[in-house]
């Protein structure tokens, strides 16, 4: 695998109706690094991922992807963002991961089908290929989405709350997969809520509370001092906020 991609954030501000959700954030997700993004609800964690994928426009500053085309980034959405009643089978959902290779018109072929099948087996969903996604449990759905990422074979992976509302067994299985990706030299960024899991498994952490609080090795970033500072964040936007005066 060639040089892993990296993401450089240069004084990035992402906003909803001009109210910043991520405010003046600078730093780098290094090639091959594995970073947890943690912080209170409303801290801008998911917003930051969407800024990186390009789904949300950058209000100010720059987000630069190095070593990868934005379309080759794999993104795991929060479970609630997908319509689970949609009539699509597990096999077809996983096969959408082939999009960059087959596009809208080319044949998926036996090879692609075999790849999807192998991915489904790797996440422990063998036998579920023909099931509609509406019949899956939350954990099984998450496994299916991981299988799609396996098929995407991306060198930069962004995961939004991959282990939320998932039982211990599934979490352990999916964590093993994530560790394997990290070991293969891919760059990973994951939004997480479980501090214990982050401390035990993720080497680096970005702690944000709209403003960046700490970014570095997990043990240092999650120090008691930093956590207290993160908690002090105002949750609500202020209606009478003035235009931000800090240098762009």
């Amino acid at each position, binding site marked *: 695998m060639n040089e892993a991609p990296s993401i450089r954030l240069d004084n990035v501000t992402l906003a909803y109706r001009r109210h910043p959700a991520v405010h003046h954030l600078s730093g780098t997700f290094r090639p091959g690094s594995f970073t947890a993004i943690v912080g209170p609800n409303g801290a801008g964690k998911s917003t930051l991922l969407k800024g990186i994928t390009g789904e949300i426009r950058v209000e100010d500053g720059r987000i630069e992807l190095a070593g990868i085309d934005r379309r080759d980034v794999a993104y795991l959405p929060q479970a609630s*963002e997908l319509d689970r009643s949609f009539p699509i089978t597990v096999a077809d959902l996983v096969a959408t991961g082939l999009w960059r290779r087959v596009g809208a018109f080319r044949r998926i072929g036996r090879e692609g089908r075999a790849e999807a099948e192998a991915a489904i087996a790797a996440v422990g969903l063998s036998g579920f290929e023909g099931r509609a996604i509406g019949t899956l449990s939350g954990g099984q759905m998450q496994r299916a989405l991981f299988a799609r990422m396996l098929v995407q074979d991306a060198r930069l992976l962004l995961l939004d709350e991959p282990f939320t509302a998932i039982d211990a067994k599934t979490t352990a299985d999916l964590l093993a997969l994530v560790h394997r990706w990290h070991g293969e030299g891919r760059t990973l960024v994951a939004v997480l809520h479980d501090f214990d899991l982050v401390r035990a498994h993720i080497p680096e952490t970005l702690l944000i509370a709209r403003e960046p609080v700490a970014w570095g090795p997990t043990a240092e970033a999650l120090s008691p001092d930093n956590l207290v500072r993160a908690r002090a964040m105002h949750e609500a936007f202020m209606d009478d906020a003035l235009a931000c005066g800090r240098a762009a």
Partner: protein
Amino acid sequence: MSLPDLLFGPFVEFGFMRRALAGCLALALSGAPIGTFLILRRMSLMGDVMAHAILPGAAIGFLLSGFSLVAMTIGGTIAGLAVALGAGVIARATPLREDASLAAFYLVSLALGVAIVSTRGSNVDLLHVLFGNVLALDDAALYLVGGIATVTLLSVAAVYRALVVECFNPAFLRAVGGGGGIVHLLFLTLVVLNLVGGFNALGTLMVVGLIVLPAAAATFWAESIAGRIAASALLGLAASYAGLVVSYHAGLPASPSIILVAGGLYVLSILFGRFGGLVPRALRLRHLEA
């Protein structure tokens, strides 16, 4: 009267009934994938809105060149697309939600269309535009409906994968550079074409029925998208045929008969449908072992 006479007599005896049947079958076949995707996209009411939106365009065509199929078709297509795109733009550029802006557009369109037709035509013309005249399809109208059905089925087959992914997970398609916007636009164009093709036969207000009702009923009979499209096509074909037979024997106008039969099939599907039908659920089959 014997049974074959009852079922086939009208079509053996009268050319206009055969033409009506051919037109409706083409419409039903072509409407099946359109209706299925409208429902999957939660856009079934959007179909209704666009059907109304076609009216002023068709009316202007009528005003300029009388009862000309070409003029009314072109006018209707332009008006339908303009409203679909206009409502989308307003929803993105202003705080007004898309459903509200669509409602605004179609109410104005309907008023405008009726006003335009009545400046020149008679009440009969107005009724023709609103409710169609399936029993008077000429060659040109049949070619138009057949052509639209062909284009629709081929287009849907060509972009099927993109259509499904765009529908299920638009953010994913955008992320991998799949061109979701183009797919959406193509789909809207097909919706408008089908409505325009249908309004000659069934009228602007009724044509949506033949697209949406079978597709809605089909959700009770199949779990996969392809299965729903097939079921929807079968139900649409059945409604077209049975509706024409009923209208012939009962002396009812054709397009309401077709839509009423489609509505009846819809009710039957709600009651007896395999997936989520009320009766199968009430029977409470014993649960399986695993």
